[in-house]
């Protein structure tokens, strides 16, 4: 095989993935409005492109199979077949299979596939369609063409189709323009650019802050000008990593549809804010939690139609997927109009599971958070969809990893809203620089509740339990940052600083540092593979001195420390 051919083949795989994900939502649209000619035309164009490209790069098996699907669609377009739920199910199945095939091809481009099962199913489907909605007598001929004499059909098809496609040509041009506005760029390149721009920004800051030392007015002005442009470049480069959440929402829509079908529920999906842009890495991490959330919403949230009717609600349930930006956060909501969460039920279940002590009194919100604990499931029976108590745990873990939070609002009988709040970007953070002996550490400002200068009188030592700080009458466990960072504590200072952290995961505690040297924006640098999983360290940042410094994740540091403490005893 020539190199050229391989490049074309990989290009096809890229394109195929794109086509398959957009064709999926068209299929689902078709399910809602089977007569929508515009959707049908769109599907037709995409399948046609898919077939054509597959054939031209040498995937004859794929091309031939898609041709048969095209035949089915021709029938639909001509009004010979009617779209019914079975057709859509089949089309979605075909799409899933093709997706798998494309994935497989990416792994091994030499792979060939057997479409006989799908072809068989297609034949049965066509038959059932033809017996119910056949109009013209000459049509069976066309069907036979599609299924039987493949090579002939493939050879003659293009002429027929170019003719048919003509009326929709203007629209096609419009989509072509849309496509040309995007180019594919390797994510690593963008990361490099973002990194470099971060560095540029640091250097520029030094120039800007010291511009008064420059004697020439012209140069001074240039520095100010360059400052503005650098900021702009930074904004743009940060924006490069952003992708709309649309595709993820579409996937969820499909999952909701499938799960609902499986459970015999009818659910309408509402999507808003699908154009909201989210960092690509965050979006990838978001896929799993969202999956569990929508599955839960369908399975636990929405009741079966009969139950809904009894509660005088519309039989068709609604799940809303919403995304927007508010208060410096990306907000993603999954809302259902189902039965809602019952705090009492959750608490009693948690008591039974031993997650909370019997007789515990807690607010509704605290009770809701219990469902995020590992092993928690209010469903009595375990099904393939949910009930194992693993799902929401995954949600919590992944969202913690993204430094996000999850809020749950619910009203019994009215529905539940799961709200994920994510920081806008992970690459640049506001941070506090603290000094311990000769080392500087970076702590994300978002995690710090307050900083307090302590006097020795405020620090109490309890044998066997460590230090406590007395801050305005509150007793807070105090840990020496030097100690946590594996250093011997230096000589005691008269006025050390306590950095108070109030977190959901690690509770309230304070870190003892020598002094706070500053507060600034830092660019988070990833540590090498070899340092992955180092507890308490979330990355590195290059500070004004030009050296790399560690970014501390106080909560993680704390938890590892506690964990080790337990092991030691």
């Amino acid at each position, binding site marked *: 095989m020539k*190199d050229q051919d391989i490049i074309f083949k990989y290009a096809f795989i890229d394109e195929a993935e794109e086509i398959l994900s957009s064709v999926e939502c068209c299929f689902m649209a078709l399910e809602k409005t089977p007569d929508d000619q515009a959707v049908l035309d769109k599907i037709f164009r995409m399948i046609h492109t898919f077939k054509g490209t597959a054939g031209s790069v040498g995937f004859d098996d794929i091309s031939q199979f898609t041709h048969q699907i095209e035949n089915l669609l021709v029938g639909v377009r001509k009004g010979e077949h009617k779209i019914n739920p079975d057709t859509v199910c089949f089309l979605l199945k075909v799409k899933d299979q093709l997706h798998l095939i494309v994935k497989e091809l990416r792994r091994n481009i030499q792979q060939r596939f057997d479409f006989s099962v799908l072809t068989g199913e297609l034949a049965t489907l066509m038959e059932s369609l033809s017996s119910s909605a056949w109009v013209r007598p000459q049509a069976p001929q066309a069907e036979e063409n599609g299924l039987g004499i493949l090579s002939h059909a493939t050879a003659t098809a293009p002429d027929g189709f170019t003719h048919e496609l003509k009326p929709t040509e203007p629209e096609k041009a419009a989509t072509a323009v849309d496509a040309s506005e995007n180019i594919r760029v390797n994510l690593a390149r963008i990361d490099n650019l973002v990194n470099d721009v971060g560095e540029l920004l640091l250097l520029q800051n030094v120039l800007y802050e010291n511009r008064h030392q420059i004697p020439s007015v012209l140069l001074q002005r240039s520095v100010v000008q360059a400052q503005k442009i650098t900021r702009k470049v930074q904004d743009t480069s940060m924006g490069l990593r952003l992708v709309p959440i649309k595709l993820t929402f579409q996937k969820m829509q499909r999952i909701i549809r499938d799960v609902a079908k499986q459970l015999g529920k009818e659910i309408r999906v509402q999507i808003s804010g699908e154009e909201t842009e989210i960092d690509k890495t965050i979006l990838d991490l978001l896929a799993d939690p969202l999956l569990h959330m929508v599955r839960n919403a369908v399975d636990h949230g929405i009741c079966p139609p009969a139950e809904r009717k009894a509660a005088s609600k519309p039989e068709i349930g609604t799940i809303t997927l919403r995304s927007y930006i508010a208060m410096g956060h990306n907000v993603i909501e999954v809302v259902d109009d189902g039965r809602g969460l019952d705090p009492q039920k959750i608490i009693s279940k948690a008591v039974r599971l031993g997650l909370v002590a019997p007789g515990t009194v807690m607010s509704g919100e605290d009770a809701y958070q219990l469902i995020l604990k590992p092993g928690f499931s209010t469903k009595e029976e375990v099904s393939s969809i949910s009930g194992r108590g693993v799902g929401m745990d995954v949600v919590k873990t992944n969202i913690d990893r993204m430094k996000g939070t999850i809020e749950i609002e619910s009203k019994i009988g009215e529905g539940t809203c799961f709200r994920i709040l994510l920081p806008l970007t992970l690459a640049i953070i506001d941070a506090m620089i603290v000094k311990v002996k000769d080392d500087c550490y970076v702590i994300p400002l978002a995690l710090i509740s307050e900083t307090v200068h302590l006097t020795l009188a405020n620090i109490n030592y309890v044998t066997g339990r460590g230090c406590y700080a007395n801050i305005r009458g509150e007793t807070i466990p105090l840990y020496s940052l030097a*100690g946590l960072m594996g250093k011997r504590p230096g000589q005691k200072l008269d006025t050390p600083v306590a950095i108070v952290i109030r977190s959901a995961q690690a509770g309230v505690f304070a870190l003892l540092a020598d002094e706070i040297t500053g507060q600034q924006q830092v660019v988070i640098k990833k540590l090498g593979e070899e340092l992955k999983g180092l507890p308490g360290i979330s990355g590195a940042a290059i500070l004004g001195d030009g050296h790399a410094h560690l970014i501390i994740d106080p909560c993680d540091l704390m938890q590892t420390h506690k964990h080790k403490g337990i092991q030691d005893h």
Partner: protein
Amino acid sequence: MSEIEEKLEGAVYKEAKREIKEDLRFLAFALCEEAYAVPLLKVREVIALGEITPVPHTPPHFKGIMNLRGQVISVIDLRTKFNMKKIETGSETAIVILDLNPFCLGIVVDSVDSVLALTEDQISPSPDIESSVSQEYITGVARIEKKLILILDIEKALSIDDLAAIRNQNTRKKAA
């Protein structure tokens, strides 16, 4: 199949692959008065010893991290790793940055000596000689003007298991 696979690697890698097979150029450096060499193609650059920030809960040979023009790179001290005696940092002390996919690491060396272009007959398989480095890390020995240069299997010397040990050590190490 192998032929296809090779082609599948793409034009980019093909070039590099052929070179690796044929390229017998090495970067020679000194570790504690012994001469070592690593394949030149694995070397990204050589820089002067800069400020290194120590990372807690890592083994002693893990020196820390440093800023290489905006990239944060881990630096490893092979002398500690190989249990050599400590040598004072001098003006010739340098860091060799290695590109070992997926790792990019720096190693501290006492001095960088030369780039050697060797022929195959100049390299003999690792004999039983006395060196501070365990035999398994040495792929061969080059004899140049009566001087012995040990060719390091640098990936093995900095093996992934070894790097994973950094992680394991964390879980074992008692909290201070």
